[in-house]
């Protein structure tokens, strides 16, 4: 990898902000997974295991 390849238009502070944004996005995505999972369980209700197929 030559020197030009490692250069980015972002300085250390910019990269730090980007990392924090990415971390928050990861948390939000995880929260969405939990949200959809729990909502599905709540929507199905307690009798779902006893239903007739």
């Amino acid at each position, binding site marked *: 990898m*030559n020197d*030009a*390849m490692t*250069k*980015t*238009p*972002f*300085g250390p502070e*910019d990269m730090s*902000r*980007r990392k*924090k*944004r990415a971390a*928050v996005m990861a948390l939000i995505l995880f929260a969405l997974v939990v*949200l*959809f999972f*729990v*909502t599905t369980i*709540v*929507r199905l209700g307690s009798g779902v295991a006893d239903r007739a197929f």
Partner: protein
Amino acid sequence: MSDLNTYAADTPATAEGGQGSVGDYFALLKPRVMSLVIFTAFVGIIAAPGAVHPWIGFVALLAIAVGAGAAGALNMWYDADIDAMMKRTAKRPVPKGVVLPSEALGFGLTLAVGSVLVLGLLVNVTAGALLAFTIFFYIAIYTMWLKRLTPQNIVIGGAAGAFPPMVGWVSVTGSVDLGSIALFLIIFMWTPPHFWALALWKKINADYTNAGVPMLPVVAGPDETRRQILIYTLLLFPITLLPSLTGTTGLFYTVTTAALGVVFIYHAVQVYRLREGVEAETACKKLFGFSTLWLFLVFALILVERGLGLPAFAPVLG
């Protein structure tokens, strides 16, 4: 490839975007407005007849809050030019240059679509559709069309801020009932005197004049604005009592709200009466401050009535 590397190394980061911090993106959501939306939507959920699973109620509230934030971000994207001209808004992320307009647009659209889908799919379709309409109304009807066109911008645009309790209500019932319309009307009629009191402040008025936003005090003058504030405040008084006629609230709400309404009218009369100097400015500030407290108290009264299990009146309307 070498061209790309040269471009990457020489182009300043500000031209590329990606400068905004988590806090900047949070500011795009207009958190203060969002907190009011969350509160009024919560009251809509609690006031609605019937019951909803607490988790589904939470999901509804979350989607409504994110939808409100999306509307705020889209508003800041479109209004970046006039925000930059006003002292009150010049430090917002887009005019400050830390978030690009395109980033604000992408952020707002993503949240708008996501919140509508979550509400529509996980709660009910009617609530999702109403949230979509609310965001559309705030951005297309108010921000893009009315805000820069007519001094009645706040009157009609105020509907966007009045929808959240209705969306909360519909999240529970699945339909738009008279009770939800009563909650809508309270915020709808409250908005003009609240924002015109703010617009009458000298420095805020100067901001709107500089930016060319045709707020009522800029176009029709402070005297006409004072008259309109009084008219809307007088009209608001009976509308505040509508939830009692639709069977949503009872005696405690009715009596307390009537007393609060009298104080609101007193402040509006003071604004109408005092027209010059520091006293006039103070009267406007007091009305603005009280109207904020008034809206909180009126909606909190509904929560208190439900919390204490106080009986509501039998519905006269509906």
